[in-house]
């Protein structure tokens, strides 16, 4: 593996408040403090490009074990690399679920062998993600999970959620939550509102998310233990979290690209590539989510990369599985919407939301360009205009609503521990 010298790039390293045009040297897979005299380097011209810490996506579904027709750890990792991500965090709703240390070890060993990026895994809060009894949290912590979540499902029993929080604290394991009140949501498949009324599709009301966001705020306060709310979709969820954070409650939240790129009127053609959970909501929700990102209420951005086979999605709308692939469109959408179009945040803040912020939440030794850190680096052309083409995806699946969308900005090279993994 050659040592790399990234020449004349705009180095943006939010963890170190660094934003300057300079050279960056990578020696033996780590960020070098200075350019060693007489060293031999492969030089990469980064003029006009941004040199950022490797991006982290803390919300992906890589489907192994059990559903490798949708995605594998290897193909998911390639999709991550193609999208500029050097680290990903897998959700535990596999088959079987990640609810024992042996599944944790299986994933970690497979990732070690086959993945071109760093693959971390979460563990389930409850056995079988059934929401009834605690999974072996301590044993999974020892096996190397980085967080707990029942993502895809939501613990409905508030007492059980409380005890999970208290128990997880012993292992310093962050708890992430997919916020969905089952009684309110019922069989909902799209945002409840004007369009669900018109289309005759069962509605998934915003209150179904907000109810659990509020529950989490109360439990985080009660237990004095942080909770991270996954994939916020509703504007009122942002307002609840803003108020709670102002009161010092340890609550945080993430937003996915599709929830700020598309609204519920996209469902008019009953295209199942627009079906996700939580659902696409209204223009007002989009504005509130973007406002939350701009004013620091939302501290993390993630994809909720959820691959499904074409044949699984090509069914009646209410029978189709929820979710879309996201890793290969994520950075482009965030750059396009947040930095270029709405100007809600600047480039350094966007990079922070995709690097040091998730690294801090999950206590990962990643997300910075500090000297000595593992040389995970993403080189970004923030102004490159490109068109999404699902046929070129590295992911095993192509279930995206963004095929054909024109975007501005993308990763042009992805480096993991000093090795170029994309292109």
């Amino acid at each position: 593996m050659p040592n790399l010298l990234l020449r004349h790039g705009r180095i943006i390293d939010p963890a170190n408040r660094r934003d300057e045009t300079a050279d960056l040297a990578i020696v033996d897979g780590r960020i070098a403090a200075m350019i060693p005299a007489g060293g031999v380097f492969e030089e990469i011209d980064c003029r006009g490009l941004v040199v950022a810490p490797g991006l982290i996506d803390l919300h992906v579904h890589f489907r192994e074990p059990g559903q490798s027709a949708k995605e594998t750890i290897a193909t998911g990792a390639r999709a991550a690399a193609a999208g500029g991500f050097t680290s990903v965090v897998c959700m535990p709703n596999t088959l079987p679920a990640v609810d024992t240390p042996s599944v944790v070890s299986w994933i970690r060993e497979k990732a070690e062998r086959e993945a071109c990026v760093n693959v971390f895994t979460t563990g389930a809060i409850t056995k079988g993600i059934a929401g009834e009894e605690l999974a072996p949290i301590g044993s999974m912590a020892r096996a190397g999970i980085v967080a707990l979540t029942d993502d895809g499902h939501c613990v409905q029993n508030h007492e059980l959620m409380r005890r999970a929080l208290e128990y997880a604290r012993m292992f310093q394991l962050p708890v992430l939550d997919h916020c969905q009140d089952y009684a309110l949501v019922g069989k909902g498949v799209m945002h409840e509102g004007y369009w669900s009324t018109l289309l005759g599709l069962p509605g998934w009301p915003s209150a179904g998310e907000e109810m659990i966001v509020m529950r989490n705020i109360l439990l985080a306060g009660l237990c004095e233990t942080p909770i991270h709310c996954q994939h916020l979709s509703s504007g009122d969820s942002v307002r609840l979290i803003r108020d709670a954070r102002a009161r010092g409650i340890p609550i945080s939240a993430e937003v996915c690209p599709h929830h700020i790129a598309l609204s519920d009127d996209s469902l008019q053609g009953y295209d199942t590539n627009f079906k996700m959970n939580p659902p696409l909501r209204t223009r007002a929700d989009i504005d509130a989510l973007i406002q939350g990102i701009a004013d620091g209420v939302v501290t993390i951005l993630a994809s909720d990369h959820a691959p499904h086979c074409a044949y699984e999605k090509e069914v009646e709308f209410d029978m189709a599985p929820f979710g879309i692939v996201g890793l290969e469109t994520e950075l482009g959408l965030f750059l396009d919407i947040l930095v270029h179009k709405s100007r809600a945040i600047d480039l350094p803040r966007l990079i922070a939301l995709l690097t040091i912020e998730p690294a801090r939440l999950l206590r990962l030794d990643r997300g910075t360009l500090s000297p000595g850190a593992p040389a995970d680096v993403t080189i970004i052309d923030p102004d490159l205009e490109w068109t999404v083409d699902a046929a070129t995806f590295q992911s095993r699946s192509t279930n995206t609503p963004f095929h054909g969308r024109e975007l501005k900005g993308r990763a042009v090279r992805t480096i993991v521990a000093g090795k170029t993994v994309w292109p």
Partner: protein
Amino acid sequence: MTGKLKSSQPSAVNWTRKDLIAIQDLSPEEITFVLDTAAAFKQVSAREIKKVPSLRGKTLVNFFVEPSTRTRTSFELAAFRLSADVVNISASTSSLSKGETLKDTALNLQALHADIIVLRHSSAGAPLFLSQRLAASVINAGDGAHEHPTQALLDLFTIRERLGRIAGLHVAIVGDILFSRVARSDIFALLKLGARVTLVGPSTLVPREFEKLGVHVTHDIDSILPEVDVVNLLRIQHERQRKEYFPSLGEYTAFFGLTRERAARLKPGALIMHPGPINRGVEIDSEIADSTRSVILDQVTNGLAVRMAVLYLCAGAASIEHAL
């Protein structure tokens, strides 16, 4: 159509749709054109020989994933009167019960050279899904809570036949609007042809979102009855899963049922409609259902003519499309 069907003069519309998926897709002119075509076909059913050769050699599949007797029979008879061959498939007799997807089942029907597929399905959007994947005509016979276009067309046909027009009339639709595909198709069709629409029912079953469609919503049936030209009562269901929407059928009848007292408040000449099957004594008083103001059985008769028109027009458009 045969040369003997010239008494009505259909408005000049170039019908190009191979499918009928939703009233929302149709222009006011297209709706009127279907009604005019149906008027011509209605005469066929009154003849000694109730058959024309319009669809001779065509195969129609009644694909009813959700059970129905009335609509399926109506489509079946309509197809017979047009001389089409008809096959009936239900969810339990199809391979859907063996896990085959809707798409694969439909592709198999197409491989058997089905020309027209009439689909009833519990999932909103299912007919659109099929129409995008099949060369055959797809006719929506009701999809989830989305649309039931031929029901709306037969409702409009019946109103127009009795009252001579649609524009300017005030129509009340009463009952479970939230879960009703009939309500949606009726609302779209009536608004497109210039009627005023008022929705009446329990607040749990008539969400305010409907007002954005340009209709009026009320929960007071007594105030609205003297003003309307047509009252269309929807079937009320009170199965286990609906118990959170209203407490009992008795309370429903007390607040929204068309009792004799309420029927007496209607304008002279106002029509009473119901898509059926009716619950006597629940949404409508039994004697009122049988009264001269009730056009419930006319709706059934007209449904046949409307469905003949729809099959004739869509199959014709499909043939032209295919030939091109």
